């Protein structure tokens, strides 16, 4: 049973639509009778075909003009809500997604369900599921406010699949009412250099925790193994907070959610806030010197041992195979 029109807040980096957006569109097709998207982009025509391929019949476009994408997005969503009354607005738990939904929520006086890992239709209501206590407990919540129902979904909650082959017809929203929120101006963008696949997209993720001992050990114990497996390297909050690696590598509740084919946890205890970001991985290998470490309860292969000796031997053995 479907629920009327679902409006998705789409995000793109240049012409590349974010994977979280494609996941949302896929889910929107499942729960909605009609799917439309809002995109804040200077070149909406470049992203519209892909949004259409994943189900968006109409792509409402707003030009950021040097303002914050999320804030412009909120005004764009509000304008579509006013003109065509969608039943549901979905956005990703991302930087701009949270800006968009929070400003929208206050503008149109609707509550928001955040951190959803699933959404489903139940009768004439929408139920969002979120995970608590590090994913040990699943809570289903139903919004009882008027529509639209606003839901923020954690990336990697469902698979993205093309389908529907909708038109992806671009409709420009023109001038939007931003009020003082539009006074925030983006002056400059700094892009940090990055090698290898992105953390959220990689088929293999090797992450390091405090057990690697030092920032200097991150290269030999984490990056090298990730590189040999064509994977990405990640980290716990403990070593991000310690300044060993940048925040962009953090996996977990306040970092990224990853679902690779293989996740290797090196010197990671397995705190619930870390587990929630990686326990959906197909296969997990953990290396920890404490046999009681909670990470072993989710590991398919657990090695009780010293990471500083075991990992270099693994690296060496893989290199020896050529």
């Amino acid at each position, binding site marked *: 049973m479907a629920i009327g029109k679902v409006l998705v807040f789409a995000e793109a980096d240049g012409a590349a639509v974010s994977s979280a957006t494609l996941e949302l569109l896929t889910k929107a097709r499942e729960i909605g009778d009609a799917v439309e998207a809002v995109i804040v982009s200077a070149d909406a025509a470049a992203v519209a075909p892909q949004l259409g391929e994943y189900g968006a019949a109409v792509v409402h476009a707003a030009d950021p003009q040097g303002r914050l994408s999320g804030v412009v997005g909120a005004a764009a969503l509000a304008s579509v809500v006013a003109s065509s009354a969608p039943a549901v607005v979905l956005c990703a738990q991302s930087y701009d997604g949270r800006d968009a939904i929070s400003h929208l929520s*206050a503008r149109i006086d609707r509550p928001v369900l955040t951190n959803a890992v699933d959404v489903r239709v139940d009768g004439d209501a929408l139920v969002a599921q979120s995970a608590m206590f590090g994913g040990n407990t699943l809570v289903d919540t139903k919004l*009882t406010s008027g529509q639209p129902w606003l839901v923020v979904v954690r990336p990697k909650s469902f698979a993205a699949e093309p389908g529907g082959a909708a038109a992806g017809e671009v409709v420009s929203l023109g001038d939007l009412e931003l009020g003082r929120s539009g006074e925030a101006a983006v002056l400059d963008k700094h892009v940090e250099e990055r090698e290898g696949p992105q953390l959220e997209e990689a088929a293999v993720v090797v992450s390091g925790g405090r057990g690697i001992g030092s920032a200097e050990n991150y290269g030999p114990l984490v990056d090298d193994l990730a590189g040999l*497996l064509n994977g990405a390297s990640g980290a716990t909050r403990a070593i991000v907070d310690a300044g060993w690696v940048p925040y962009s590598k953090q996996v977990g509740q306040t970092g990224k959610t990853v679902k690779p084919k293989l996740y290797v946890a090196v010197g990671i205890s397995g705190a619930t806030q870390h587990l929630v970001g990686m326990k959906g991985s197909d296969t997990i290998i953990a290396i920890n010197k404490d046999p009681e470490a909670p990470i072993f309860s989710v590991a398919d292969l657990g090695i009780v041992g010293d990471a500083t000796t075991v990992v270099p031997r*693994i690296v060496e053995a893989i290199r020896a195979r050529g």
Partner: protein
Amino acid sequence: MNVIVCVKQIPDPALPGELDPDHTLKRDVKLILDESDMYGVEMALQLVDAAGGGEVTLVSMAPNSEKGGLRTALAMGAAKAVLVSDGSLAGSDSLGTARVLARAVERAGGADLVLTATESTDGYTGTVPGQVAELLGWPSLTFAKKVDVADGKVTIQRQTEAGYDVVEAPLPAVVSVTAGVVEPRYPSFKGIMAAKNKPIDECTPSDLGLSGDQVGWSGARQEIVSVAAAPEREAGEKIEDDGTAHERVVAFLEELKLI
């Protein structure tokens, strides 16, 4: 320059979380200052210091009249606090919370800048900062890893997927700060003693002109329909390293066809 910091008092995150019979997080326990908010307090103190005058005011909402966390932030150097507290606040969602905080900011006499953390440790909706800004009618600059104020403008480095953006807005504005924006100080003994006598203006939602259906459970307009244990992941093989464990790992990687 006057800065207001939204600080949340939460159950100790080091203790295992519990749910009340109404399925919300158990909060009628001793509450402490959310560590994430210490960055906002420190940032505010440094900005006021750099401006050469003004003060830091705290605003907080809690269903019980807990003040322990506020005393910690006052001991760091904030001058005073507004605490909105009432049983009717239990069950408030992020929008209800933002309504209360926005009114509390006005009650505190407004400010040049309102600081929050990017997300609270216990609720982690991450939506309160943007909602407070929209309700005040101010711009919001979120995910700041660096904050500067000069010439009536606030400029931040905003964390992005790819690195950071430089974003600027005229004051007054709401800024949410990430951990690491500054290193929070420890309250000194003198600070702790002084905090005991700093004023905390305790008020209720109705003092702020908010009606019962704008806060708490009824304001949240949502209903928890079920709470269930997540399917557990099975633990697999576990071996003690006797010097050959790496061979097992390599064989495992072969089975997965990764090498």
